[in-house]
């Protein structure tokens, strides 16, 4: 009997998040393509998402649909998923290492008495075992890990932007199975309000291009030219700890060992000196650009290309050039 790996699908603004097909790819790699993949979709008003998900290489889509599941609530999601897991009995559960996945995965792992490997960036199969690579110290070191000891399921969270996404082959023949969900009467956790500050914006951890500002940005207004450049590139805006501590921006933008670790295709560091704790959060980016007035700034030591100059002069010039080039 081949293994069964379950992917917890994630969606935002009515669309599947990119990390979901990436997690499918990771699951497939973990078994050299030998495992059967199934997905579970939670939320309300899921019809369009079910259709979208059908195009992907999953044999079955389990649907847990209820108005009370519209916003993520760890207690409600656990109440919905735990019974499903005991019916489906997967050999592994894959989630994105996202706000939801980071929170939900340890809940499931605890309930399953299972091991969990978090924030996985690479997977290779070796026989019946799979070897998972994950960062330590935000990427100052890496470890390869395996599951051990027991036959409890594996729980894995996959870092966004690190696996090629599974391709929607368009077969559309995945079986849809609706599971019943009755919201527990005694939930202790209630979601009162969700403010989608990020709606319509590119998520920092999923962005292909990031324009990031440091102390050199000097003020909250100083982020405007960076936002403009990010807008032209369909990228996201990030920040160093210095910029966040100075109150120029929200902590949600912080990149570094405290904050988020990002691995975009292009990282443009503007007015960031390059403290070790910041470098840990971005040095796995494919191409790094540094813009800084100080030619001695440590950021130039890790940058593929550097421009020595005032970011308030350089960034608008870049925006202008990209606009021309991409027109």
């Amino acid at each position, binding site marked *: 009997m081949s293994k069964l790996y379950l992917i917890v699908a994630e969606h935002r603004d009515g669309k599947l998040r990119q990390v979901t097909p990436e997690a499918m790819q990771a699951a497939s790699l973990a078994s050299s393509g030998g495992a059967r993949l199934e997905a579970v979709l939670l939320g309300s008003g899921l019809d369009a998402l079910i259709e979208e998900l059908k195009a992907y290489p999953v044999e079955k889509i389990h649907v847990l649909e209820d108005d009370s599941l519209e916003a993520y609530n760890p207690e409600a999601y656990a109440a919905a998923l735990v019974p499903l897991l005991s019916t489906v009995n997967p050999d592994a559960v894959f989630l994105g290492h996202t706000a939801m996945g980071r929170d939900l*995965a340890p809940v499931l792992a605890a309930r399953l008495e299972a091991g*969990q490997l978090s924030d996985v960036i690479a997977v290779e199969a070796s026989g019946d075992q799979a070897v998972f690579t994950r960062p330590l110290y935000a990427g100052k070191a890496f470890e390869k*890990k395996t599951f051990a000891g027991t036959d409890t399921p594996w729980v894995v969270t996959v870092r966004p932007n690190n696996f090629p996404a599974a391709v929607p082959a368009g077969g559309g023949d995945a079986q849809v199975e609706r599971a019943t969900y009755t919201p527990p009467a005694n939930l202790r956790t209630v979601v009162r309000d969700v403010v989608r500050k990020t709606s319509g914006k590119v998520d920092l951890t999923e962005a292909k291009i990031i324009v990031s500002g440091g102390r050199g940005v000097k003020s909250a207004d100083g982020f405007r030219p960076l936002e403009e450049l990010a807008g032209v590139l369909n990228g996201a805006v990030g920040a160093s700890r210095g910029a966040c501590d100075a109150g120029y921006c929200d902590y949600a933008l912080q990149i570094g060992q405290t904050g988020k670790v990002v691995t975009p295709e292009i990282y443009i560091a503007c007015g960031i000196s390059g403290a070790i704790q910041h470098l840990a959060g971005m040095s796995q980016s494919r191409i790094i650009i540094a813009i800084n007035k100080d030619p001695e700034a440590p950021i130039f030591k890790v*940058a593929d290309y550097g421009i020595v100059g005032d970011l308030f002069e350089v960034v608008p010039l870049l925006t202008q050039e990209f606009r021309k080039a991409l027109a």
Partner: protein
Amino acid sequence: MNVYVVLKQTFDTEEKVVLQDGRVSEEGVKFVINPYDEYAVEEAIRIKEAAGGTVTVVSVGPERTAEALRTALAMGADEAVLIADDRIPADEYALSRVLAAFFADQAYDVVLGGNFSVDNGAGQVAVRLAELLGIPHVSSVTKLELSGGEAAVQRDAEGDLETLAVRLPALFTAQQGLNEPRYPSLPGIMKAKKKPFRQLTLDDLSVTPEQIAARTARAELFLPAPRQAGRVLEGELPAQAAQLVQLLRTQSNVL
């Protein structure tokens, strides 16, 4: 209000990582309370200052962890517990089971931890602990207000702001922005020396090594290939900007 904080001692984030004999070298390294756990300690002390009660800080770790616990006591925590035992594997399943065994006979209203540790970064232990204790949790909390056996909480969800209400007892993990941790004062440091500090082993918790067998194993530890410094462009700034855009368009397929 009985508040417990689970904390971990980690490398200072400005430390480099050096491998020696297949392990991360701790030689000359400055250790700190994991930055996210430090927010948790601060929040616990603020809860006590507002509502009374006690703050207990708990850690599972090697003996050196005592220093981090002493720092938390100096900040204002009342009691510290260090669970130090070489038989505890570095595995989140095991660590959470050990903590749950400790909490089994404690009376707690609020348990606080960090959103994740800056070393291992898995972000599992606190949430697992809540599940094992059968209490609700909210992770990545940026605001916490307690009243009438309930918590009003704001959570940072990758930039989105979620507002939740949770019935106590409950566990919360701290995110940046929750508060600004205080520095230990000199009188605080002096007082900390006299505060209760207990050290426990698995035997004290009636946990056997078999019950906490690791669910994961490390096969390899390595450092990333160092990045090479690239090219600093030259010429007038407008020309440099044009050149950079050209270079990126030829080298990257996302543009």
